[in-house]
């Protein structure tokens, strides 16, 4: 029994300023068309929620179902910060694996304001996310910068290394019609962009974007009946929590747990659970899509995923191993560097990229002979995911 991806669709990322539903519906219709499945045949629809668009955002599954036309399908919605999309995919997968349905649609979309992500409004001193802004002015980039500075101190990474990540991802993004930023950049441009949170500059940090993504999942039997030949299989979805003691400062925390015993760092744990479920290891991956909220974080992810030893990511980057055409391309989609972040859509967009790459349909950014890939993310309040797909 396996669950396969039979359709993938996106609305291009940008800052178009339209209601999020429009992006989600466009992506859903594209995914359904890609699958050759009629909306009325979808038995289960899951929406990954946005928290920035008022009450409708909180009921995303029904919002999309209504926009597509009430069809009587089973519906669910979920919010899990940056992992919302991954958990939505997991919900659909679980229902198919349980035999409760054969075909499901998963949709995520967001419409974002300009500037820093900010906490939900009001005077709310019981919310650590609100408090970190109120007491410290600690924005998301501030946390990314803490990791970047730590990386420089521990492993000797330099601002030039971070710039090289952006240059690499911009080059890939320029080849992706769904990316928001499609212009190659130079290291000089990155290093001359304004400092935002030392040592990270504007072009080191991912933007906040509008966008929508959707996938159609099905049982292998349903895909066969539909005539889909060698579909992309979801080999693992890991949505594990961190493990106590969590000794790395994560958004939106004020402090870590005390290091009372050894524990596997969160990002590593996400990947390990996925590898175990998929029955493969990092050496079998053809490429990886990682959550490059900052350029420096892409380097951390490479080590967390086991693509190289701790402290060695810069070496791979400098050797061109992680570029398109390299030994293990990282973010062949262009990554968040080229997309910006549309939170509930982002993890689903990663699955779209995995699908297109593994089908050999990624065009100019195709990873040659891609057979297996991982997509990972991490967000607020201990949320994260790792998805492995294989051909």
């Amino acid at each position, binding site marked *: 029994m396996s669950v396969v991806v039979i359709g993938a669709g996106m609305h291009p990322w940008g800052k178009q300023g339209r209601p999020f539903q429009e992006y989600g519906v466009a992506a859903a219709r594209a995914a359904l068309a890609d699958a050759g499945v009629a909306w009325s045949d979808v038995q289960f629809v899951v929406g990954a929620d946005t928290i920035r668009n008022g009450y409708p955002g909180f009921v995303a599954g029904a919002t999309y179902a209504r926009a597509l036309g009430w069809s009587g399908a089973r519906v669910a919605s979920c919010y899990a910060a940056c992992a919302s999309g991954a958990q939505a995919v997991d919900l659909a997968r679980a229902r198919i694996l349980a035999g409760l349905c054969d075909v499901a649609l998963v949709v995520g979309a967001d419409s974002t304001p300009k*500037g*820093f992500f*900010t*906490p939900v409004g009001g*005077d709310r*001193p019981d919310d*650590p996310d*609100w*408090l*970190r*802004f*109120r*007491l*410290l*002015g*600690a*924005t998301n980039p*501030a946390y990314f*910068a*803490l*990791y*970047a*500075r*730590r990386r420089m*101190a*521990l492993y000797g990474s330099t601002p030039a290394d971070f710039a090289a990540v952006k240059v690499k991802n911009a080059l890939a993004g320029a080849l992706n019609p769904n990316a928001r930023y499609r212009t190659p950049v130079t290291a000089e441009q990155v290093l001359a962009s*304004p*400092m*935002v*949170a*030392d*040592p*990270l500059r504007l072009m080191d940090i991912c933007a906040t974007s509008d966008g929508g993504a959707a996938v159609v999942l099905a049982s292998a039997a349903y895909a066969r009946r539909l005539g889909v030949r060698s579909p992309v299989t979801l080999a693992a979805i890991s949505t594990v929590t961190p493990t*106590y*003691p969590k*000794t790395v*400062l994560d958004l939106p*925390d*004020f*402090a*870590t*747990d*005390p*290091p*009372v015993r050894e524990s596997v760092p969160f990002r590593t744990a996400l990947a390990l659970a996925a590898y175990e479920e998929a029955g493969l290891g990092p050496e079998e991956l053809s490429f990886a899509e990682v959550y490059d909220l900052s350029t420096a974080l892409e380097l951390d992810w490479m080590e967390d995923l086991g693509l190289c030893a701790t402290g060695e990511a810069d070496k791979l980057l400098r050797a061109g191993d992680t570029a398109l055409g390299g030994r293990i391309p990282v973010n062949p989609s262009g990554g968040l560097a080229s997309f910006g972040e549309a939170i509930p859509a982002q993890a689903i967009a990663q699955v779209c990229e995995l699908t297109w790459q593994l089908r050999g349909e990624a065009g100019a950014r195709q990873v040659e002979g891609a057979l297996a890939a991982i997509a990972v993310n991490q967000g607020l309040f201990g949320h994260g995911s790792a998805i492995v797909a294989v051909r």
Partner: protein
Amino acid sequence: MIPGWFDGTHLLGTRCTSCQAVFFPPHHGFCRDPRCEGEELVEERLSRRGTVWSYTNACYPPPAPFVSAEPYVPVTLAAVELERERIVVLGQVKGLAVEDLRVGMELELTEGTLADGPSVWMWGPPR
């Protein structure tokens, strides 16, 4: 600013009386260690010194609910590993800029004020 977090000289955490783990911000009701059944957490003043785990600044005024000084002076932040408890605590830095900071250097807790008045803990040079 937040009652029970900072007494003007020390950060206030809680210690689990069963496993002795220390938490900040103060955590009550049950121990955060899934292997510990402890339900009694008592307030404890935390080490005033520690070493810099990492640091950064905010070159642009952070958004609300932060209240920025006028004219804006970049906020410096440091994550400091406390000497005894070895937990890493984030705070604003007073009297030092990013140029003055290094990972591993020692800092000491001090009191500072936000632009609109409230008192908060801040990290400063050791005295």
